């Protein structure tokens, strides 16, 4: 039995569909409110012992009032003292989607020379967009074909300190790029991973692309309506990675 933890509460919104996707991939999933983890003093040791995968879903934690993902990150670091790098070295994998990615950035998982802010058009945007995996290793993605995923965010523009060479950073790897400029993000970056590729954060929502009937063009091919969506790849690869340990 391989267990995954999906965080919920405080304005995280996508825990249901994230839980469903992880279950479809084979994980036994606990969806737990972050306040319960704090009350149970669920430490780094507990995390490592109980779970092989941690999923941080999208949403509007704390209303994004002080910057997206910012207060959630404070809660994870101050309230739980989690060290995700250590979790990943010890066999765990972490996926942060949208607000979950923003929280990973605010936690400093990708160093302190990266930040994420309002889309250049200052608008929330919901559309599907082509994204491509880079050559950086990333356990969630196996091929470098362009895939098509939904984005739904108002703050997806990644910015870096001017000293950073984004494709050669000691703190992170660029893992995923948009095929067009959707929000003004530096170098069309859609997702970052840690150096080992076991912690991955991205703005697009793989958990909202797990059945073909979610794809905006699915009615062109009604005969394929039964099929699963491309987003399942992320969850299946994560499962394969941690189950072969």
């Amino acid at each position, binding site marked *: 039995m391989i267990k995954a933890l999906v965080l*919920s*509460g*405080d*304005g995280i*919104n*996508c825990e*249901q*569909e994230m839980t*469903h996707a992880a279950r479809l991939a084979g994980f036994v999933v606990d969806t737990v*409110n972050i*306040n*319960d983890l704090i*009350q149970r003093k669920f430490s780094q040791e507990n995390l490592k012992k109980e779970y092989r995968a941690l999923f941080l879903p*999208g949403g*509007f934690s*704390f*209303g994004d*009032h*002080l*910057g997206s993902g*910012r*207060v959630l990150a*404070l*809660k994870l670091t*101050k*309230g739980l003292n989690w060290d995700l790098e250590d979790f990943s070295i010890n066999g765990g994998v972490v996926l942060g989607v949208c607000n979950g990615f923003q929280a990973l950035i605010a936690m400093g998982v990708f160093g*302190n*020379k*990266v*930040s994420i*802010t309002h*889309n*250049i*058009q*200052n*608008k*929330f*945007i*919901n*559309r*599907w967009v*082509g994204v491509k995996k880079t050559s950086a290793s990333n356990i969630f993605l196996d091929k470098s074909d362009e895939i*098509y995923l*939904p984005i*739904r965010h108002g703050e997806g523009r990644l*910015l*870096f*300190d001017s000293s950073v060479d984004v494709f050669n950073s000691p703190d992170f790897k660029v893992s995923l790029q948009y095929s067009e400029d959707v929000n003004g993000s530096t170098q069309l970056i859609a997702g970052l991973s840690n150096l080992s590729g076991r912690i991955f954060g991205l703005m697009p*929502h793989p*958990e*909202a692309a797990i059945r073909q*009937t*979610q794809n*905006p*063009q699915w*009615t*062109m091919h*009604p005969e394929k*309506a*039964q099929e699963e969506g491309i987003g399942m790849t992320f969850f299946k690869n994560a499962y394969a990675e941690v189950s072969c340990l």
Partner: protein
Amino acid sequence: MYNRTEVILKKSLQDPRGMALLEIIKEWDLSLSQKIQDLRVVNIFWTKYEGDSSDFNQAEKDIWWDDVLQQKNWPESHWIVERELHSGMTDNLGRTGLEALEICHRRELPDSQVVSGQAYLFVGSEILKEDIEKITVSFISNSLIHCHRIYSQDEFAKYARFESSEIFPKFITQLGEVPKAECIPILGMCESELLELSKKNLLSLNLLEMKAIQSYFITAKRNPTDVEVEILAQTWSEHCKHKIFAAVVEYSEENFQESFQSKNISKKIFGLFKTTIAGTTKEIPKPWLLSVFKDNAGIVAFSEDEAVCIKVETHNSPSALDPFGGAITGIVGVNRDILGCGFGAKPFFNTNVFCVGPLEMKKGLPVGIIPPVQLLEGIRSGVEAGGNQSGIPTVNGALYFDASFIGKPLVFCGSGGIMPRKIADKICAEKKIENGDLICMVGGRIGRDGIHGATFSSLEMTESIPSSVVQLGDPITQRRMTDFLIEARDLGLYRTLTDNGAGGLSSSVGEMAEISGGARMDVSLAKTKMPGLKPFELVISESQERMTVAVPPKDKKAFLELAQRRGVEVSLLGEFTNTGRFEVFYAENKVADLSLQFLHEGAPTLQLKAHWIEKKPQIISEQYNENPFQILKAILKRPNIRSKENLIRQYDHEVQGRSVIKSLQTSKEQRSSPNDAAVLALSYNNFIGVVVGCGLNPRLSIVDPYIMAQAAVDEAIRNVLCVGAEFSLRDETVLSLIDNFCWPDPVEDAEKMAALVRTCFGLREACLALKVPLISGKDSMKNDYNGTQNGKAVRISVLPTLLVTAMGRMPDYKLARSADFKIAGDKVYKLGPPQLGLAQSEWHGLHAEIKSVAAAIPDWPRALPLYEWLGSKESSEYLRSAHDLSEGGLLTALAESCFTNNLGLKFKSDMDLNLAKTSFGEGFHQFIVSVSAEKAATAEALWKKNDIDFVDIGTLTSTPDWKWQSQSIEVEELYQAWSQESL
């Protein structure tokens, strides 16, 4: 200590917020905007902190500082506008700031406080003070909710902004006076004094009602308190009591020609609601109707285990004053209706429909009216924030422009929820309360915001508005409350619940008290945003994000404990009783003691007159257009038709992962066209689809509201049939309607009342013809503006408007259809009886000089075979696309279907496109479908066999142009016309 934190974006980075505001100013006044070289926004947080500064400095850095994005230095600028919310209003950023401080300290900080604000920095040496003042009051500071200060560069340099003396006045301090209830000396009042009291206290009660209250207290041998009078006014308000829909109406007609069907209208109506709404549903009972018209929302069984509830609300008056705040509280308010429906449901979709004035109306507007451009942006962003932040997808809607909506816009907010049909042995569609159950107020705190919302919305708009009626939304508090209550529901920790909306506690507790037979509460125990609230304010405040929950005493501990873990506040106010009384205390003082029977049944019934003058018979002459494709181009640019993509994409329409058919059908090349209705997955574990669509056509009420109502029903039904909702006359077909009436005040106006009567009977006619029940609805009856324009008195009333929302089911959503044409070579057909007309059509809007055109009338019996076929599984084997023919007529529908995949169309040369009615007629029952060439012959045979009208229109081509006889046009040209100025 006191502190000021400034969050300043680095000068080297573009500031999207500043740029967006500059865009708006540019739209509004180009020459003024050209004086502005740069515009940036700084977030400010003022903190009252109970510890010392060294602790604070570390926390401040952790919470607010960002190396990559921020700088410490205040940027140079010529003008600075600093603004914050009036104290006591919901300050979301401030509250989160305090929460972050508490997270950093790992404990609560009861004596600390954070207040948020913004500074707008204008660079441009030519900008004058009066320019800044104009911009500030137009776009930055709404005096109902904000206070602001304007500084020149020099003044700002002198502003000691980091000094405690400048900071501490921002925080609320205790008031000296102990709040108490006032006695209202009603016993000795004469008629004019009674009316004066109603007016002065914003009670919006008429003389008969005031006299009923007076005689109740004469019998009780005492004067009432202000709390009692307010409770009665809220409960009896038009908003809560729907007095017009309960009135006895005498209906008469004049000039009556051989008008169709409407002979069914009764001459004396004992309650329009009872006879035409609830009465209609009673005549078409369905086994899947679990709860209609008695709860916060209608509840429908969708499967063995799951039920769906739906409600559509309006928030017109609040949105007219503060578009953002009005719309966001509209959407989170209707979400609470869902949360408080039955034993509690989880919202899984939102809808929105806006009716606003034309966007080009910018200057010279009546006093107090917000220009439509700004208003639309405000309500749009309110719905965006309310839905997106709460994690509820916005899946369907409409936008309708007409000059009649300039005075009061219509803002419809809808929501659907999902609930299990049973939890343990509890039937979730029912509400129960026992004597002794505790009254718990859950979620947000009470403030002075939203006082008199219910009674205010029962009055017409004037230039003078009390600021207390405005409410601000706080989606994150509501989101936490929702998570908590759904969890508590599944654990069985409460008996039932309802939301605090219009009328606040007076309505929620007052209504719940009817179930147990009484209630007793002490409002001094309620948690508040500010000290010093009077008892009547506590009772009627409509402060948001609150639910009232009945908790059995045995579950109190577990309920409170879970609430605390979920970061949700609970105020224990008292208990439900069976005494037949509604008793309110403020500490030990009794401030209200009313008989429940009088409260709920004591309001006198209204007697209204309705008189309909039939318009003179119209001279019907055929209208021709030489070049239909050029007319089409003009129609595609019209605001009601034009692309709404910009708006739609700012709503999250996919959160929760249920999306099957989206509002827009989009190609990989990002070309979009509208779909007719939304399809959502009911659950992750089966393929049952929930279909949501809507219909409205207010302008037809100029012709005849009787037709207007039927057109709204037909459009809503057509929309859900397009995407594949099931339909038949059999009982097992799950399809239901929600009716929302927005009316100009009909009380003293027999013609407007007659319009209401005719609408109700039109609605009834359509429902009975299709055997589709109404399950929920709402009315808003005072949509008039009374004020001045260019120094003259004006009254602006909205068009009588009925919005119909349809909610249907698909047994298998994998068979859903989209509206786009798919493959070149497919055949295109028009299906349905040709019940079309030009009166009040988009074509008519282009040809306003032509008065004498006819409106369409429905032919329900002839449409039924088609609807049954479209609503059957068989149709999915034939149809590659389906789109309804609505605003803009046939050519508009065809153009929209061509856009997504950029396909051309070769029309059959015998099509009479020169006839305006054929190309641009609007009305009833018609659809555009595409069928593969191989299946076309069998499809035609099938239609013939089933008595379905069809017209062969032509064939799709891969060359993206339209060809008809000698005329042609590129699809791209049409697409540009439609999408270039997307709203």
